[in-house]
């Protein structure tokens, strides 16, 4: 288990954020094969908060916990207006390259890579709280069908 830690509201915090997740996995002897997915979701949610969140420079809090069969991650952003990232629209990834833009792709991918995610907002604290879970046994929908012998990947 790991108590939540605060990270400066900057993309430059990513390196220390990834050290934090990596150390958590090592310390708790967790299956490292899901670490890139956990990092991916953490980065997309964190950078979204950096880009659209508070302008007063408050840090963003990130907490990790072991749950049955997986990991739960929580990101808390205080002093912000509500924005439910879990309701962000999907991206049509079948469009030809001429019509593709990178916008919205991050949250689109988080939705597919994690097992579940949840958003809560406290009006009193002006606080957004995003929580997601990733299990060791499951893969994102669609991957297993294409995996063949690689089903044990994560």
């Amino acid at each position, binding site marked *: 288990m790991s108590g939540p830690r605060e990270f400066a509201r900057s993309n430059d915090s990513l390196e220390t954020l990834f050290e934090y997740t990596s150390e958590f996995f090592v310390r708790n002897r967790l299956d490292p094969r899901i670490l890139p*997915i956990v990092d*991916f979701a953490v980065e997309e949610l964190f*950078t979204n908060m950096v880009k659209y969140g508070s302008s007063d420079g408050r840090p963003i809090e990130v907490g990790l916990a072991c749950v049955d069969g997986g990991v739960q991650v929580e990101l808390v952003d205080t002093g912000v207006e509500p924005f439910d990232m879990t309701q962000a629209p999907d991206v049509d990834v079948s469009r030809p390259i001429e019509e593709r833009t*990178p916008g919205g792709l991050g949250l689109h991918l988080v939705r597919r890579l994690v097992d579940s995610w949840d958003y809560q907002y406290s009006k009193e604290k002006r606080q957004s709280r995003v929580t997601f879970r990733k299990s060791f046994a499951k893969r994102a929908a669609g991957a297993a069908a294409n995996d063949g012998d690689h089903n044990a990947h994560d």
Partner: protein
Amino acid sequence: MLTIEGAGAGVVVLAGRLDAAQSPSLQAYLDKLQGEVTLQCAKLDYISSAGLGVLLKTQKRLLPAGGKLRITGASRHLQDIFQYSGFDQILEIEPAP
């Protein structure tokens, strides 16, 4: 950390992590290249949507001029991200052996 090394003839060797903090340096590097560009990614451990944005922008710039972007040595993580983002349809991707 991300390391970017030119290996001649449009070949670029990437190692480390291509995240939102590192993507601007790769974008600046790729913006100088023309024609067919191969990114050797065998030692690239991680990519996020910021990295995908770099690849998309580069491919959209190269294609009309007759060039293209090619990815080699893609790990399982990279393959998953390319698949779910539909980038496996707009980039030539060679998985790691």
